[in-house]
């Protein structure tokens, strides 16, 4: 597994300057992405998950900058890139992205065919009739009927789900190695969502892609992910294989997140809810960022930032609870119930 790292992020720091203040959006994050896997990054809005993946493509807003760290991909350090020209060798060609809202990510003034053709011409080097044929096969690939007719239509003539298919077609037409899906189905209905997720999975298989999903919907995560990274306040607090994180979570934030799902609630009783709000990243965070909201926080959680503790070869969490010196703290009842479920059904 170790040799198959396709993208490696090391100690990445991202900061934004806003009205003279500095916002520390990503706080020393390291993450390896393995070839062919599908990785899901889970977190609440404002946790920095979108900012994190945007750094892989050089798409940070103008007031954002990298403040140390490395992004290793294909023998290069993307964190050292300065010019747009360098980024163009990566963007689309190596790493492509599917954004949340298909209503806004397509150009309303160009036909669907033209928009896919741009990608085909630029990245596959085709021209004229060959390019046109490639566009049609792209559309057929993502399950759009009558590609000949649909290619001549404009985005407003497509439904939300169909538009998202087109966006995926454009991303795939670049023949990338990594496909980043940033909340790919949040704007869609559940029945359409299921179809789009199936499509992305089919494309991953067909083109041998590595996919990174960003989402806050744990249902989607359970459906698509091989591996999960849980993000909180600009830091990854737990990573592990899908089943490890769902059935044997170790970080108190992951516990809280899973416990507050209505699917696990008992009717008539209040749902578990996380008290308080995420920390203000304009100020320096001391210790474990989740400690102020964690009823079981230890003293050291407020003083020193915990390192990662390895739970299994694939599973690690950043919490002092895993330190051998820590007192034994039982996870909440919901989590114990999940663990039991996982164990029983695995046999």
């Amino acid at each position, binding site marked *: 597994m170790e040799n198959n790292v396709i993208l490696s992020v090391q100690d990445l720091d991202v900061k934004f300057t806003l009205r003279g203040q500095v916002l520390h959006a990503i706080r020393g994050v390291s993450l390896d992405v393995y070839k062919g896997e599908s990785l899901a990054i889970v977190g609440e809005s404002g946790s920095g998950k979108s900012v994190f993946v945007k750094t892989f493509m050089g798409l940070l807003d103008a007031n954002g900058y990298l403040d140390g760290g490395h992004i290793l991909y294909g023998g290069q350090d993307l964190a050292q890139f300065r010019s747009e020209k360098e980024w163009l060798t990566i963007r689309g060609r190596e790493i492509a992205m599917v954004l949340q809202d298909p209503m806004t990510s397509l150009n309303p003034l160009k036909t669907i065919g033209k928009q896919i053709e741009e990608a085909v011409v630029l990245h596959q080097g085709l021209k004229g009739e060959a390019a046109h044929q490639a566009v049609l096969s792209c559309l057929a690939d993502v399950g759009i009927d009558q590609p000949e007719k649909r290619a001549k239509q404009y985005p407003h003539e497509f439904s939300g789900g169909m538009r998202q298919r087109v966006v995926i077609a454009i991303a795939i037409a670049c023949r990338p190695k990594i496909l980043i899906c940033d909340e790919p189905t949040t704007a869609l*209905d559940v*029945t359409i969502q299921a179809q789009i997720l199936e499509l992305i999975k089919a494309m991953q298989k067909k083109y041998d892609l590595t996919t990174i999903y960003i989402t806050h919907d*744990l249902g989607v*995560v359970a459906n698509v992910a091989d591996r999960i990274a849980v993000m909180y306040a600009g830091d990854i607090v737990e990573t592990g294989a899908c089943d490890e994180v769902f059935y044997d979570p170790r970080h108190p934030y992951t516990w809280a997140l899973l416990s507050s799902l209505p*699917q696990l609630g008992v009717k008539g009783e209040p749902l578990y*809810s996380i008290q308080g709000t995420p920390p203000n990243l304009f100020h320096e965070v001391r210790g474990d960022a989740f400690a102020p909201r964690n009823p079981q926080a230890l003293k050291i959680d407020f003083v020193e930032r915990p390192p990662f503790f390895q739970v299994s070869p694939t599973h690690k969490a950043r919490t002092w609870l895993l330190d051998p010196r820590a007192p034994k703290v039982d996870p909440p009842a919901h989590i114990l119930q999940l663990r039991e479920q996982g164990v029983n059904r695995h046999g």
Partner: protein
Amino acid sequence: MADNREILLEVKDLSVTFGKKRNPFTAVDKVSFHIYKGETFGLVGESGSGKTTIGRAIIRINPTAGGDVLFHGEKINGPISRAKDREVTRKIQMIFQDPMASLNERAKVDYIVSEGLYSNGSHLTDQQRREKVAQALSDVGLLPEFADRFPHEFSGGQRQRIGIARALVMEPEFIIADEPISALDVSIRAQVLNLLSKLQKERGLTYLFIAHDLSVVRFICERIAVIHKGRIVELAESEQLFAHPLHPYTRALLSAIPQPDPISERKKVLEVYDPACHGYSPENPPLWEEVEPGHFVQGSRRELDAYRARL
């Protein structure tokens, strides 16, 4: 089973159409249901199914093209007296989906919360009004001092609380919650759901809960109606509906919800709904019947028989 319960709101053959007379678009097509006092009734469907339109028709924002809406047994749609209109406007309130978009950016919380009081001619002194606003804010777990702030100073969850306070200040009996938690984060959702059920217990409120996420609806609602293209296709108590979904559309919807459970997700079989599978025709019209106590389904004669056999 619950026949002795008081019916608060009844919708009979409600139709809502949009567009010109010559070429109308029927968004809601002869929908009927009733809501008991004190219950939470869920209305579930995809975007474009007409679920929000039903809510808006009940609260008199959209005019109805046919049918009746009865509140406490009195008709409240179409032309009604001004006094009745005032009363209904006060007693039925709505909570909206996106707390970022539904609050006036340029008004202070104080004004946002008391706007209903102003426009409903409640003749309160300034002192009384302020007290009511402070009370409503503390009821939803916000500090009364927040009245002097602007919406942009609040997080999504807090804004949704302001939206709820805005509805509560009118002392309503019935609240239409239109996707109140869809725009919120997972951890905030739980807070808002808890708040809604706490308020219901304390004040005996009745909710119409409009949503597309069946898993949330199952948790909070006692009965659920599934709506497809402006028609209710299935209505049952929530556990009944999840245990025996009968209509193919309900089944497709249930199979599509992603469960936060990797093992069952891997085994999942997606069902796809094709409206042509019913084969409805003038000779074979869709019927609306009760197949088990409290469980209604739409289907042709043959389909209904098959549903009954399955139970």
